[in-house]
């Protein structure tokens, strides 16, 4: 007797589970046609569900539609925000990389100043000091002398 009750109870439980599965499946099949509302793809199940309900009236349906659009809009905003943030982050990384590259390049660049040339530019007569002239070759002195000679003649 008890065995029969248990089997009856088991049958009822299986039936309820099957009903729940159907309901779940119906809820998951959202917007199979890619219909959009105000530019946003509607994700919620705004279509007439297989299971008729009392609350599925016109007002409720409209509210659901708006809510879905709002949610979809938030999702789109998030995606746009994420993509913009990604571009900002990549830009920042690029700048950082460039700065580090520049610093590295500066570190590797050998900067040298020809102090004699700078001094000669600042003080043009300096190159005609006896000390400077003595360090020059005779050919250089000859050239310098010849450049000065026509001015005398």
């Amino acid at each position, binding site marked *: 007797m008890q065995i029969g009750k248990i089997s009856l109870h088991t049958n009822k439980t299986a039936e309820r589970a099957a009903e729940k599965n159907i309901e779940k499946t119906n809820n998951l099949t959202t917007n199979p046609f890619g219909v959009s509302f105000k530019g946003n793809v509607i994700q919620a199940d705004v279509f007439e569900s297989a299971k008729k309900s009392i609350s599925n009236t016109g007002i409720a349906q409209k509210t659901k539609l708006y809510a879905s659009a709002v949610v979809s809009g938030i999702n789109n905003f998030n995606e746009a925000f994420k993509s913009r943030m990604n571009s900002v982050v990549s830009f920042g990384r690029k700048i950082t990389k460039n700065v580090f590259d520049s610093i590295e390049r500066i570190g590797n660049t050998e900067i040298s100043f020809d102090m004699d040339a700078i001094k000669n530019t600042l003080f043009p007569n300096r190159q005609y000091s006896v000390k400077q002239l*003595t360090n020059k070759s005779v050919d250089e002195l000859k050239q310098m002398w010849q450049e000065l*000679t026509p001015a*005398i003649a």
Partner: protein
Amino acid sequence: MDNNKKIRNIIQALGEHKDSQAAIDLLTEIGTNSPDDEIRELTAQTLIRKNTHESLRVVLISKGKGINDLSARVAMASINELLSLKDKSEAIKILEDTIKLHSEEDVRNTARSVRALMTFS
């Protein structure tokens, strides 16, 4: 700094230059042929101060240069420089050779006068 001052510095640098022979050649080529008395005078003095056979030959033997210069100023400055040399042996030797061997009488006479001055100085 004017050009004359620059040239004077070049001549002075040539007088102290380590490449002595090239410096003498340059002084002989440009300095002793300069139209400017001051440059010729300074060149002659520099050559005499070097006190080498090559440098002294230019100012003692060559006609129109050093002690034989047409400018009295240049000639007198050269003679004064010769008289102020500490070691006059090389100069006297060249002057004696000039007195004996030079073809030009004017050059021989000048050499004789200068040698006499150097002997009694």
